[in-house]
């Protein structure tokens, strides 16, 4: 009896092993690891970054798009003209484009998609992108005219977002589970919980993709991500979740480690309406109590760029204000004393799940303790964080990375969760929206950075780095992350 049992067991193991080992030919397929699975595949119906990370520029395209350097480039629109008053944008579309189901793409699809996203009952997570649009008209099958209610210098930028992609009225309702777009890759299948597969679109209107097949595999555990790369199950992890392993990958010739920048300003968000943070001196004291480098080294293993305001350092209009909030414990103590908190005070520090927040939070709490501020840490899930902190505004301090590109405008919303209410700043931002001259826009953006730096609205910590690991033979992956995307068009195996 025992012998029969063990024979069965042995047989199982052997048959399992026999199946291992695969062919080693020139590779035209790739497996990309991602930490989170997208809830659906419709970028116009959800804020999850994972949606864009699969479909942006691969499956779906909009009138304009982001290049790997963050610049706005033509996509479905071949060119455009802007009227002198800045109110009318005439887009000339590429001709001969078909959707993946073979149907023809034309100007009506553009009108349909944008109108749907800005409609009253729209569930577009970034509806504000379309705020300035008054009407969208189709003048001929290859021309769309967008008329604005007020000039908007950011319109072309806004239209490049994943939330502004173009779908066909016939297939838009399938986008959540089986998207049909115009991009260089076609959706092939989705094994929920495990992976999504895309295949090359042979009829793509632009430069064809170099790969035949792309698989996105979802691995949430950082240790499992490490194992998957090491075992060769995954070829690249563009946003690798465990910076502590990066040194190990760097030392291994089979892998290359890519460190780039993201649009994520990581800040110690401060409730400007809650005492004592409604006092600017207190906020300034907090700013001087923070040792940015210690946080970057301790929480991010050295990856990240210090920032002194809410703006991406790689942006041409960035100004460095880190000196205004340099680490200076004595100054911080003096400021607190002046504000009447010589003996410090107690507050809450509510932390969402990402490691920058959890690890950074411990370090910041220790730094604040040096000047007498007792920050009581509570760890929240995202859903709780959204409810308590973001909507409920029930917090003193929190740490979060604001990953939307060019989002300094959130400081002009007095209802936004950190509740900064400065009329001059709000005026500046609404003037900026109307300004189309590049030079004046840059000057205004710099002024905006200076205002929020000088008001110490939040503790500005660091720009989140994008740390990716890939097989050393892979070329063409995006180094930076101007938007949350894995554009696979240019990717190929160099072997």
């Amino acid at each position, binding site marked *: 009896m025992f012998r029969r*049992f063990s024979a069965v067991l042995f047989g199982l193991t052997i048959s399992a092993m026999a199946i291992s080992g695969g062919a080693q030919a020139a590779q035209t397929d790739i497996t990309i690891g991602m930490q989170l699975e997208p809830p659906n595949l419709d970028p116009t119906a959800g804020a999850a970054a994972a949606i864009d990370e699969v479909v942006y520029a691969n499956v779906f395209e909009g009138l304009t798009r982001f290049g790997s350097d963050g610049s706005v480039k033509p996509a479905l629109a071949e060119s455009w003209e802007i009227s002198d008053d800045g109110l009318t944008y005439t887009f000339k579309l590429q001709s001969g484009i078909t959707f993946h189901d073979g149907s023809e793409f034309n100007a009506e699809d553009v009108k349909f998609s944008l109108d749907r996203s800005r409609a009253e009952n729209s569930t577009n997570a*970034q509806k504000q992108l379309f705020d300035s649009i008054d009407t969208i008209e189709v003048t001929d099958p290859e021309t769309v005219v967008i008329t604005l209610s007020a000039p908007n210098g950011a319109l072309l930028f806004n239209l490049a977002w994943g939330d502004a992609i173009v779908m066909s009225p016939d297939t838009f309702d399938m986008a959540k589970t089986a998207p049909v777009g115009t991009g260089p890759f076609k959706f092939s299948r989705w094994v929920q*919980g495990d992976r999504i597969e895309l295949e090359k679109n042979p009829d793509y209107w632009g430069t064809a993709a170099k790969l035949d097949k792309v698989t996105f595999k979802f691995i949430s555990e950082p240790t*499992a991500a490490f194992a998957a790369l090491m*075992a060769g*199950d995954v070829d690249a992890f563009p946003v690798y979740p465990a910076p502590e392993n990066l040194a190990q990958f760097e030392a291994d010739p089979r892998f290359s480690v890519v460190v780039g920048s993201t649009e994520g300003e990581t800040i110690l968000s401060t409730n400007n309406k809650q005492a004592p943070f409604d006092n600017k001196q207190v906020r300034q004291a907090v700013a001087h109590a923070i040792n940015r480098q210690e946080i970057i080294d301790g929480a991010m293993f050295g990856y990240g760029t210090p920032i002194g305001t809410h703006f991406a350092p790689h942006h041409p209009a960035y100004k460095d204000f880190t000196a205004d909030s340099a680490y200076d414990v004595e100054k911080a103590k003096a400021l607190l004393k002046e504000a009447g908190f010589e003996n410090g005070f107690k507050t809450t520090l509510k932390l969402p799940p990402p490691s920058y927040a959890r690890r950074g939070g411990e370090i910041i709490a220790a730094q604040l303790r040096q000047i007498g501020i007792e920050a009581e840490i509570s760890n929240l899930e995202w859903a709780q964080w959204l409810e308590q902190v973001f909507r409920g505004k029930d917090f003193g301090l929190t740490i979060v990375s604001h990953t939307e590109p060019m989002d300094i405008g959130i400081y002009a919303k007095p209802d936004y969760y950190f509740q900064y209410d400065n009329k001059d700043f709000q005026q500046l931002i609404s003037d900026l929206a109307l300004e189309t001259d590049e030079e004046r826009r840059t000057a205004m953006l710099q002024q905006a950075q200076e205002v929020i730096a000088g008001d110490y609205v939040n503790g500005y910590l660091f720009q989140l780095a994008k740390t990716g690991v890939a097989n050393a033979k892979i070329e063409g992956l995006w180094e930076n992350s101007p938007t949350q995307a894995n554009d696979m068009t240019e990717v190929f195996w160099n072997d």
Partner: protein
Amino acid sequence: MIRFIARRLLSLALTLLIASVIIFLALEVVPGDPASVMLGVNAQADTVAALKEELGLNVAKPVRYLNWVTGMLTGDFGISYTYRTPVRDMIADRMVISFPLALYALLLSTLIAFPAGIIAATKRGAVADLSVMGTTQLGIAIPNFWFAMILVSLFAIKLQWFSAGGFPGWEAGFGAGIKALTLPAIALALPQASILARVMRSSLLDTLGEDFIRTARAKGLTARQALWHHALRNALIPVLTIIGLQFSFLLAGAIIVENVFYLPGLGRLIFQGITQRDLIVVESVVMLLVFAVVMVTFLVDIAYAAVDPRLRRRM
């Protein structure tokens, strides 16, 4: 017997009803709603309201509860808030991984535990017994996720015999499917086998000390014959109870191991459902697991009663 079964069925239905109320209430008080989670930080208030309306989240709670329960009775588990696909299909997709995995782990655990337990009991106090007791002590003490990582670093990273995780799907072939489940099944089986081997050993030792074994030996059977023909069968009753419990545990309790091996099973579905506040998915899966546990218990009860008529009156 029929009255006994009827009584058990009634209590089973009541258990399920109470469980459904508790599950629903427990999850409804969890802070955070799926619409806000899906739309993120830039969404405007009217957008969130529109999505809530679309998802049917504005319906009153008692009505939602009734819809959920009556739906389940007809096999309709509703539509997932986040994925917008029928929950029934999602559960079915995950079940084809979780069920075979639980069965595989149970099979391995039994294959290890039976010989180990029997050897330990018959060689009581000898080296074999001591090493079985020592190993099983270790097996119970080692957390299964840690053991899983050890397996991965040895068999997937070092030797590259297995993938580090993931599941190719049964359409890739039975062998490929079994191969993908092998390391997770071993990780799950080790602690279960340790417990089972110990139960087997002590149960067998108890039985071997009974009068009827002495009688059997007295009538001329060898120790081996007495063990196979008399002791083993009687010692199996507590062992089967444990196996029944282990199966429900393996079905529901594989969350961590599924995460280590990134297997898209039921455990991971619950985990994702909770973080995304996809409450209808969480409620339905938990309810299904409650159902599985209750059913296993019910069947074990019936089996006992069939074997031992005295139990019918006692229960």
